[in-house]
């Protein structure tokens, strides 16, 4: 189960993790900016080692997937259970790593509310089941047998922590990758993975799959371009045909997507365009968005 910086036992950060995160974020950006201005955006990977000390990225995030589960000491048969507990346990255990919502449990077992409540509490005390946070709906009480690790459908996956998407961490990883790509000009997944490992950039180990996920998100943000190396010019360091990434903006790591002709006028962003007619109640003559736009 992934744990966020807020709950990690070895975290050096303060109790207010989010504010610490944003401070760190600034420190990353400031460090990278000072580097690019001092060095004119040089391209060697070694020269970006200034970015690496752990104190620059003390954001800690535990990689849940690599943790070893403690298996329950008792197998269910050796534990004395009431009938209700046994029925409920079987239902929960039968759902394996997907677990089950308490309401569904009641429907399946036809047990009265109070019996279910009591049995669940007892099963938890006996460490046969555990409550997990469902990323789709945190209010739902979701249970899973202790021997299973909750599936991606329940936790949300590697980038989720306690049912929430760890957006702060994702943003920091994105920022760091963007700066690496900008400095290296042309980067590959392997290159970034090597850089991350060598410099211990994060307190968690990122897999190449996770790096790829972040790079794909950066492509979708239109911050970087995925392309095949030509083997010529600035692609010379990457064998021809290999997938590599380049910053979209040539002047800095971050860039804003181009605003098109339609998006720069009120009609392009108007939520009421389908109700707008030349002589209707909503019309270009009476439009409040136009009024605001042409108010010089």
């Amino acid at each position, binding site marked *: 189960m992934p744990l966020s910086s807020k709950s990690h036992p070895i975290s050096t950060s303060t109790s207010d993790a989010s504010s610490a995160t944003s401070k760190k974020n600034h420190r990353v950006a400031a460090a990278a900016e000072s580097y690019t201005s001092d060095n004119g955006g040089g391209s060697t990977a070694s020269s970006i080692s200034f970015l690496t000390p752990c104190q620059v990225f003390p954001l800690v995030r535990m990689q849940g997937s690599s943790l070893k589960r403690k298996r329950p000491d008792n197998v269910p048969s050796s534990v004395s259970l009431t009938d209700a507990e046994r029925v409920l346990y079987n239902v929960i255990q039968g759902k394996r790593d997907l677990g089950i919502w308490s309401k569904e449990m009641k429907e399946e077992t036809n047990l009265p509310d109070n019996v279910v409540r009591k049995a669940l509490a007892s099963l938890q005390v006996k460490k046969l089941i555990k409550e997990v946070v469902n990323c789709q709906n945190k209010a739902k009480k979701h249970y899973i047998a202790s021997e299973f690790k909750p599936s991606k459908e329940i936790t949300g996956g590697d980038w989720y922590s306690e049912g929430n998407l760890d957006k702060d961490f994702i943003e920091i990883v994105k920022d760091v990758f963007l700066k690496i790509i900008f400095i290296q000009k042309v980067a590959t997944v392997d290159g970034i993975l090597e850089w991350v490992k060598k410099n211990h950039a994060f307190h968690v180990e990122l897999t190449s799959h996770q790096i790829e996920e972040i790079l794909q*998100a950066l492509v979708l*943000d239109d911050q970087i371009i995925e392309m095949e190396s030509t083997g010529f010019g600035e692609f010379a360091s990457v064998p021809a045909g290999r997938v590599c990434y380049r910053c979209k903006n040539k002047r800095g790591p971050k860039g804003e997507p181009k605003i098109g*002709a*339609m*998006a720069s006028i009120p009609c392009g962003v108007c939520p009421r365009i389908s109700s707008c007619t030349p002589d209707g109640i909503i019309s270009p003559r009476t439009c409040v968005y136009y009024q605001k736009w042409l108010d*010089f």
Partner: protein
Amino acid sequence: MVTQYGIKFAVHIITNHFGNLVAKVCECLLRRGPLTFEQLVRFTELTKEQVKNSLLVLIQHNCVQAFILEQEGREGLKVNTQYLVLFDNILHRLRFPKFLEIVSQDLDEECVELLEGLLRDGRLTLKQMVDRASQRRENAVALDVVQGSLRKLLMIQYVERCPAPEPVLSPPVEQDTKKRGAKSKRAEKPETIEHRIFEAAVPAEGIRFSLTANSELINNSDISPMRVGENVAKEDSTPFRANFEEFIRRLRHKVLIEKVRTTHDDDAAAVLRAILDGTRNAEKKVKMEKSVPLTLDAIFTELQKTENGRAMTMERVRSSLVLLGCDLGKYNDSYTIELKKIIDSARDEEVESIVLKRYGRDAYRMFRLLSRTDGFLETDKIAESTFVEKRDTPKILYKLWKDDYLHMEKLVLNGARQSKFLLWKVNKPILLEHVLDEMHHAALNLSLRLAYEQEKDGELLTVPKDKIVGQLQQRYKRLRNAWLLLESSLMKLDDALMLFHDF
């Protein structure tokens, strides 16, 4: 592809330029397709004279093309004249300043003036051109001066001879459809009536851009002096008009080159320019999906014609060709560039920018993911790939679907427990039509607002400049800024209209 708001916008342009009566005839043709004179009179409920004059105006300005349709009826071959409205040519009226700008970059002032006259009057004979040029000056302009300018414009194909006034369309020959397989059916696109008329009306390439089409006959001594006289008289009455197709081609090339410059670099843009310049006369239509093949040597020769191109080495040219998606083969291989891909990418950028502004960053990422994926994606998969909270994802997708930016399908699986999945995709052809309609709507709105601003503060323009002080000055400044913003936005939006409709 003429959308509902496309028709409204075209009618608005015609109303502005030629008044309500002409616009009524035009709207009738736009909504109902080609019609005969009698049908037009019946549908518009105007007098015969009014319809006739409106048609003459529209034909003069190249917005309507007459044609004779031969139809086989019970009593044999039936012939009637029909009128087809040319939607594209109506919208091109917005682009006249852009066309003149192109000519002013490529040719001299006389040519610009000549084209200006053709755009203003729709079509002119050589004699009318000479008269028009002379009116502007104290002394009459010599025929050969005007001929010289016209020849330059014809050479570069910015001007053409007007098409035949009434080409004859024979009934289409029915082919044996039984033998055709599914494959051939898919490959063949149905030929539009507009295309058939264009084929029948436009003179052959050699004559279309020639000043004296019958010059060979004139020079031929075997022909009697009487025939020569007839030919000269015929030449004098030949009307010429601006060749919109060539201007649109030039504007398309410009967009292609600039798009490559922003995506790749100046080198790649220079190479693409060289290829397009080198194959310009070989392009058979505007919407070329691929550039005409050109050898590396020919590309290099073309590059050397420009200052920036001369600085490029063969290595840089080859590198740019790879960036443009070419496989480097043998030295003397020919290269073609997938132009449609570049246009598609520019269109995607425009649509994505609307999504970003209207629905926010998360929606933008989701839309880009779906736009780049063939087929459907499930809600959770979209959330994972775009790093959006799983519980927020369906809400954002729903908004996009409600506004027709996404296509959605429900999938119900009946297993141990019934589970429902929502699958999403971007249906490009439908989406592009929807966005184009919204763009036509927006262009109409800009134009209507401009008219409203002019109407609201129009009296300010009649006040002498020295009396515009204080509050009046503020109002005047506001009006001027509003006009500038509205007009420049309309011109920019028109670039996007061309990208979606003409390129």
